[in-house]
């Protein structure tokens, strides 16, 4: 731990990526994140949405890692504006939904019906 506060990256079960300063943690992995941004990744692009302070319940945390501040700058990803990334995400979601629909249709034709997975843990 250095004199600088460490930035942490948290991946949540619903697929969100949060980056912020981890201020507190407890035995359940409940987290308090400060100056958090939610980072949305689509392909090689990403966009940050500033969110402020997060208190995350431990059970929703998939993983938590420390960001090496020096390595943070050299990433092949390209940052874009929030609007753009949201648009990209919407497009991606749409494509996924369509393919999902096709799959369900195909399965139905074959007499199978796979129940939709829980919205959590699926992204």
């Amino acid at each position, binding site marked *: *731990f*250095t*004199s*600088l*506060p460490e930035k942490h990256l948290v991946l949540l079960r619903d697929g969100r990526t949060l980056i912020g*300063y981890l*201020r*507190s*943690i*407890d*035995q359940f992995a409940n987290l*308090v994140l*400060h100056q958090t941004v939610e980072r949305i990744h689509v392909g090689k692009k990403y966009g940050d949405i500033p969110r402020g302070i997060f208190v995350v319940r431990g059970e929703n945390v998939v993983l938590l890692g420390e960001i090496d501040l020096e390595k943070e700058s050299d990433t092949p990803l390209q940052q874009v504006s929030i609007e753009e990334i949201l648009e990209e995400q919407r497009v991606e979601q749409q494509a996924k939904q369509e393919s999902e629909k096709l799959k369900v249709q195909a399965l139905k034709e074959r007499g199978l019906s796979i129940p939709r997975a829980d919205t959590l843990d699926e992204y």
Partner: protein
Amino acid sequence: MAESSELAILEDYLLAEDAPLLEEMAEEDEEIDLYNEMTFGLDRDSMEEEVAKALAPPVKGPELSLVGKNEAAAVAEVAVEEEDEYKATEQPGLGAEEEQPMLEEMEEAGEEGEAEPGARHDDFADMEEEIGVDEQEEEEEEGEEEEQHDEDNEEQNDLGDPAVMRAVHSKPTLESLDSAVLDSRIGSTWGEFEGDDLDKAILQALDRGPPMSHMNLDFLVSPAQRGYLGSPGLKRPDFRMMSPKSFPQRFMRQQSPMMPRSMGSPRPYMPSRRASPLFTPNQSSGYVSPTPFRPMSRNISTPTQPLAMHFGPMSPSLEPPLFFSPPAGCQLKFSVPSHMTQLHPQHQRILNQRQQRGQAQSISPKKAWSPKADPYSGLMTRKEKDWVIKVQMMQLQSENPHLDDYYYQAYYHRLERKQAEEELLGGRNKQEPPKLVTPYIQKMEIYDSVVRIAGSLGQVAVSTCYSPRRAIDAVHHALQEEAAGNQRLRALHRIEKMFLQLLEVEETQRKMSLLPEEQHPRFREKKSHEVGRIYQALKIRACDSEEEAEDEFLQVLCVRKGKKLTARLLPHLAREQAEEILVTVTRHLPFLMRKDVLDESLPVLYGPLSEMVGRMTFSELIEVLQELTRPLAGSTELPLTMTFKNQFGISLLYALLSHGERLLSSDMPLEPHSGDFEKWTDTVFLVARELSQVPKTALVEPLFLPSNLLSLFCRYLDKQTIHRLEAKMECSPLPSEAAMPC
């Protein structure tokens, strides 16, 4: 004195009424502090508050949680004594009921120590006054009060408040033992505070300030007391190592063997695979306390910032310079985890690198945050962080890591092996692969959570954090299914039992491989004994074809799991036993094949059996082959013919033949019995005949087609037949066919 103290209390109360809001806030803080202390233990700063608490007579329940913010409590003994009795429940969100036990214990501490009731007047209500004055008064009063603590306590008990619990001096309770957080007590900067100069003390505390929260409090604890392995790297200056003179006897006794070690030069990191059981809950000492964030802030901030009267979370308006002014000579704060904390070696390495980098350079100019501008970075104290890490570590430890954490162990072994190889090849220095070693925290003593009192009508359930609600003594008794009369069920039951035995055998085998050579014979003996037992349980015996359905071993073999069991068991068996199995299997092959039509799990036996075949002598081979050539009862059909239609059957047949051919073509003396060769040739002819007769489509492809079958046939058969067989078996043609003598 008692009266005056009572008066003082009332006074305070009146004062408090003037600032109800403050009081509420402070109350919350007190509760939170209490929780913090209970969880993390006390440290020197909160020790002072502990003292105040102890000293405060429990007039009213909530108020008991009020903590005076005196920094210079000289009654270290009291505080330390108190720690001893503190129960640490890990549950966050203390309810009111939780506080009761606390109150109880605080009283108890008060009983034992020198309770100074008057100290509680050092209230948050008085915050705005000079601290020094308060504390001085307190100190004076403490001295006076010493002899009278008994009286005071009595008085406390008489106060009649229902919220006031009677202090019960008890042995460490079950609950306290159960707590996962039993740290030893730490010394504190008592030594420094023992002086009368309170102002100086305050200033010292101020100077140290929040960097305290960053610095390890490890120096306060001898390594053996804390539950961790030596932590990496950072050597702490030992100027902080104190010998609290005021530690109670008990603690000294515990600590004395450790003390010499902890004194002296900074402790280097001593990596060890397994720490000695460092937690000795039975001797439960007090607690290591974190530096609760809030009280600290209060202490520091209020004197200089009378206007910044806040008790809740720190607001950014609190002047950082005070907070974060590093102590002189300490340019960079490294909030390295205490040397007690066991981090993953790679994590540790990164931290060390950073440290070194930090030490090498000056504070990097491109930092976005300056420490001065980040008031939130100290929200979690070192203690708290260590505590969380410790909790997580405790969850990792296990009695049987090879069972519980198989994947990591397997990965680690593989890594080790790879590195060993690399080392051999590359000649590099031995690199120890990083391994996460959890601190070894001794398990709590096991006890019966269901207590039966003689003569009672039921069970008294003792609920603990390990078994919170075990109200009935429900023990699962394995049903006796033997009586069930259902053969298949019985077979399944037997299979399960034997499988468990087999797993144990394999487990011992694995463990044996890790142990030194000397212990191997003992293990081997044990293993063979166990294997023998399983073999007996299999109940292999000779039986006719009529009894096949009832034969227990065959029943086992009819079940897929039974086949798997046998297959897994075969490598462990003695030669005769394995042979017996092979003979039995071959003898009843038609039966087994019939039963396996749906399952098709016989091939699982092929591997071990073929290995077995490969070790047989010629005579034994002949014997086995006889089984296949003996016509089935009631029909002229040969088992042989039936094998063609079954993958396992044909594979086994080929394996047998191939082995025979190998034996014949090798130079080894065969030592055949009389008639062996005839039987052999008969068998080969028979096979050839049957093979040529069976239509190709009915012939199943074997699991493995030995290459020497054709050469085998070559010995005995004419060319034409060989060609036909070759085509049928889809063997690769023999080299230089033309040169074949046959």
